[in-house]
């Protein structure tokens, strides 16, 4: 095209020259006649429809200019979008890492989590003998492993450290198809009672304690007094990385709990499905084995089935409702941000009608104007997205911090490619959403209309309807967000008000393990525990010292069967279990556990005195109904004791403790004195009259003096345990509160902006009204009511929608109805106040319009 025109030009010049015109003049004349070369080129390209790229560049340049010219507008719009996009991306990253991204093992959706099932418990730990039968008879899995949590004391350079470990059968790592970082993992030979003790250590422990030393392989480590040879390092991938050390389960199989089919000592099965077997097929396989075992061993197996789930579902199902709620909430925020920007663009489009009018008068067609608007909103979206990445990066780091250990895999959370892709898509989609709004309006202007000046003060009723609809949408979305936050706020408040059965404030705790051959004798344990208690009590600031196992509010249990004297023997297959605790005599006072009847243990309940037990109110209610339990006798672990002296006499009834936290019901409980049955693992809970953690140093020193080889762990304020039980609800509440606060701000800004604009548009009308005698109040109320009407309609729609949406939160609510009137009224009030606040300034400004000024106007 270029050459063709140049040819034309040159031919023209040549002709002029041949007619005798001097070359320079000929050139000038030809050029003059030719006109603007560039302009012609453009027209030709138009005809060719090849202008797309050039158009894009031009649109971009124009958009850039436009953005720079209105720096304030651009900044606010981009920040608004960035807020929405950033929050959304951060939450998405969180959800993606925790929920959607598969575990980092090959075919991780083939890994299955299996426990036993009973209608009373849903999931229950596996009996070792049942595992053996399952293992040998199943045909659905390639590897079928058993594991159990196992704590160890690592004695390293004279210092004791508590390690969290797993005792596993050799197929454990095969089920994950995990490869060692160095060394090797377990073989069947390692997994024998007679095998030389070996251990696989976790990557974290290897790096932190052994400085990633490769020579660790073949070295021996002292685990709770026994020497283990380190054979390998396991990869630090969730869930394997939640453990420091792994030892073969086979080393222990000589012990009694492995030979009693009715004993369920904390085992869990992890297995890998064969490639062509589905979970449902495997379930059928497992159920049929369980049914056979029920027939074969009616005493121990009646009523017992199989509980199985994909490992990923098992791990993440608890966090799902909260994360989905957050995902929805942050999407709402993004929508609100879009709506706000759409509104801003709409207002601006009004101001740009002239510009577009002139453009179309000069020959721009609809598609060119649409192109321009699209490019402008896309640029805005991209700018918003870019700032959004920054915000997402910052908030992801922050989310990681506040979620701490409340979510599995939180360490893996990051803004990765999928999050970036998500962000890009979000930016583009949002650009279109907010960019489309002004289009119709801008292109409907006729050229004549645009060029005549009277237009500036009037606005099409359609434009006004659009803006009103956007404000209503914003308030509706904000209302639903607020309802969500309100419901969670009420839930959290209820949780704090509720009584978990004991007091947790102003207390410090730690756990102490007595797994050492030195303390194999119960008497030794009783003595050293008593000695520890006395030393701790002498620390200034420490009040009563409670000793307990398992730790209340921690969620762990020790289930024992029991038999109450004088009651019928339990039928075959009937499960009578109680959650058993070992406590010292000061435990009840140390944690403020209320006594309902009788007495708690005293120093006179010793090995020599009659065996005693204290039950909780739930036990009393369920087992003894209306009768007095005090003085009744009970045996734990089995039927009537062979030696009548072993009967335990119930001496008191205490409050029920919410062992799993307030949101899940706990089993009935029974306490026995540690002086009569001495556990190897105990926790200390101490009352303090100073800030609990100021005592940490003194406690460490005291305990180290008692026995430097016995590590203490989890030294922390006791209330952090309670906080942990409600952390999901509290976090969801906090995040929803933040999201809805942002939404509220955006909605208020949106309403304010539109109303201010309306007032400016109606300056003349208001001026006339005032000139003919309208009172300032009348004018103010006129503006106020027009704004509040929109807010009100939005609020109403939002509350209606919330009635449907809050259902999705119901799993997270505690003692609060999903239709909780308090929350709804609270939301209505807050949103109403914010609406009023946003309307006030424009309404006030309207009353200040001087009639003379307004009328002079044009």
């Amino acid at each position, binding site marked *: 095209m270029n050459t*063709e*025109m140049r*040819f*034309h030009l040159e*031919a*023209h010049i040549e002709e002029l020259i041949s007619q005798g015109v001097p070359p320079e003049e000929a050139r000038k004349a030809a050029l003059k006649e030719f006109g603007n070369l560039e302009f*012609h080129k453009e027209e*030709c390209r*138009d005809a060719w429809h090849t202008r797309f790229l050039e158009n894009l560049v031009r649109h971009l340049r124009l958009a850039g200019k436009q953005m720079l010219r209105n720096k304030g507008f651009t900044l606010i719009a981009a920040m608004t979008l960035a807020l929405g996009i950033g929050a959304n991306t951060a939450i998405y990253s969180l959800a993606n890492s925790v929920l959607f991204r598969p575990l980092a093992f090959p075919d991780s959706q083939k890994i299955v989590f299996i426990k036993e099932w009973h209608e009373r418990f849903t999931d229950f730990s596996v009996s070792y003998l049942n595992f053996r039968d399952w293992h040998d008879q199943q045909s659905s899995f390639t590897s079928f492993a058993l594991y159990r949590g196992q704590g160890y004391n690592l004695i390293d350079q004279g210092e004791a450290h508590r390690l969290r470990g797993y005792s596993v059968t050799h197929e454990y790592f095969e089920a994950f198809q995990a490869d060692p970082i160095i060394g090797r993992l377990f073989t069947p030979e390692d997994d024998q009672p007679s095998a030389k003790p070996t251990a696989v250590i976790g990557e974290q422990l290897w790096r932190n304690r052994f400085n990633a030393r490769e020579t660790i392989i073949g070295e021996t480590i002292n685990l709770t007094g026994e020497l283990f040879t380190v054979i390998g390092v396991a990869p630090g991938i969730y869930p394997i990385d939640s453990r420091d050390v792994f030892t073969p389960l086979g080393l222990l199989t000589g012990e009694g709990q492995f030979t009693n089919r009715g004993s369920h000592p904390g085992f869990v099965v992890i297995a890998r499905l064969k490639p062509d077997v589905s979970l449902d097929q495997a379930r059928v396989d497992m159920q049929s084995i369980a049914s056979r075992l029920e027939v074969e061993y009616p005493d121990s197996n009646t009523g017992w089935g199989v509980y199985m789930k994909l490992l990923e579902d098992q791990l993440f199902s608890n966090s799902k409702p909260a994360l989905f709620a957050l995902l929805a909430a942050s999407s709402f925020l993004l929508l609100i941000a879009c709506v706000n920007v759409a509104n801003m663009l709409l207002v601006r489009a009004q101001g740009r009608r002239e510009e577009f009018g002139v453009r179309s008068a000069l020959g721009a067609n609809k598609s060119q104007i649409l192109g321009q608007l699209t490019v402008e909103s896309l640029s805005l979206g991209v700018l918003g997205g870019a700032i959004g990445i920054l915000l997402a990066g910052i908030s992801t780091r922050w989310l990681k911090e506040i979620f701490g250990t409340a979510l599995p895999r939180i360490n893996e959370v990051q803004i990765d490619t999928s999050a970036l892709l998500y962000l890009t898509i979000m930016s583009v989609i949002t650009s279109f959403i907010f960019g489309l709004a002004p289009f119709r309006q801008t292109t409907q202007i006729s050229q004549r209309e645009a060029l005549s000046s009277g237009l500036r003060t009037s606005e099409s009723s359609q434009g006004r309807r659009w803006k009103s609809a956007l404000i209503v949408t914003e308030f509706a979305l904000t209302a639903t967000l607020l309802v969500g936050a309100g419901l969670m706020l009420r839930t959290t408040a209820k949780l704090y008000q509720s009584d978990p059965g004991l007091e947790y404030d102003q207390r410090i705790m730690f756990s102490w393990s007595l797994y050492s051959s030195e303390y194999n004798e119960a008497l030794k344990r009783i003595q050293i525990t008593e000695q520890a208690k006395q030393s701790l009590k002498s620390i200034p600031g420490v009040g009563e010292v409670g000793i307990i196992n398992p730790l209340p509010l921690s969620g762990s249990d020790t289930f024992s069967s029991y038999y109450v004297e004088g009651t019928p023997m339990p039928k075959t297959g009937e499960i009578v279990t109680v959650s058993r605790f070992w406590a010292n005599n000061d435990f009840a006072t140390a944690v403020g556990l209320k006594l309902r009847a009788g007495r708690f243990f005293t120093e006179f309940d010793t090995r020599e005195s009659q065996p005693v037990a204290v039950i909780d109110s739930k036990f009393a209610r369920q087992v003894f109904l209306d009768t007095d339990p005090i003085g009744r006798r009970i045996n734990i672990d089995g039927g009537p004791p062979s030696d009548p002296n072993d009967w335990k006499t119930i001496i008191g009834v205490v409050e029920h403790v919410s062992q799993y936290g307030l949101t899940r019901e706990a089993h009935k409980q029974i306490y026995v004195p540690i002086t009569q049955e001495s556990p190897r693992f105990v926790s200390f809970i101490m009352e303090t009259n100073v800030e609990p953690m100021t005592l940490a140093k003194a406690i460490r020193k005291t305990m180290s003096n008692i026995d430097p080889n016995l590590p203490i762990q989890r030294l922390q304020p006791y209330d952090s345990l309670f906080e942990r039980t409600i952390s999901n609800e509290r976090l969801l509440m906090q995040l929803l509160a933040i999201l809805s606060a942002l939404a509220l701000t955006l909605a208020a800004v949106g309403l304010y902006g539109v109303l201010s604009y309306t007032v400016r548009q109606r300056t003349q009308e208001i001026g006339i009204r005032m000139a003919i005698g309208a009172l300032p109040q009348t004018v103010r109320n006129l503006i106020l009511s027009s704004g509040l009407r929109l807010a009100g309609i939005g609020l109403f729609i939002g509350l209606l929608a919330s009635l449907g949406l809050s259902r999705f939160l119901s799993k997270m609510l505690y003692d609060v109805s999903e239709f909780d009137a308090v929350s709804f009224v609270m939301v209505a009030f807050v949103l109403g106040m914010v609406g009023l606040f946003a309307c006030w300034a424009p309404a006030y400004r309207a009353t200040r319009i001087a009639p003379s000024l307004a009328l002079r106007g044009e």
Partner: protein
Amino acid sequence: MGNKSNNLLLGALEMLILKALAIEDRHGWGIAKRLKQISNGTFSLNVGSLYPALYRLEKKGFVKSYEAISEKGRDARFYKLLSKGRKQLEDQQANWKEFSAAVEAVMLSDG
């Protein structure tokens, strides 16, 4: 898309171009020169209307362009009238005769 009189003028321009190509293939400059020549200088075609019109005609399939060497030995783009274009030219020519005759009749009447 513009109004009727615009269309008429545009149509006339295209008709003139087609006519210029009826005898032989020409390049843009040739077409402009030829039209100027025949009309005794009345139709001095503006580059800004000539080339867009040519591209439109090519798009409609009335003419076809090709590269060739000009009479002065330079690379140039020539335009060739296609049969569809020739048919169009005939139609337009007939219409034009009717139209101009009508205009003439009106203009020569006593009003």
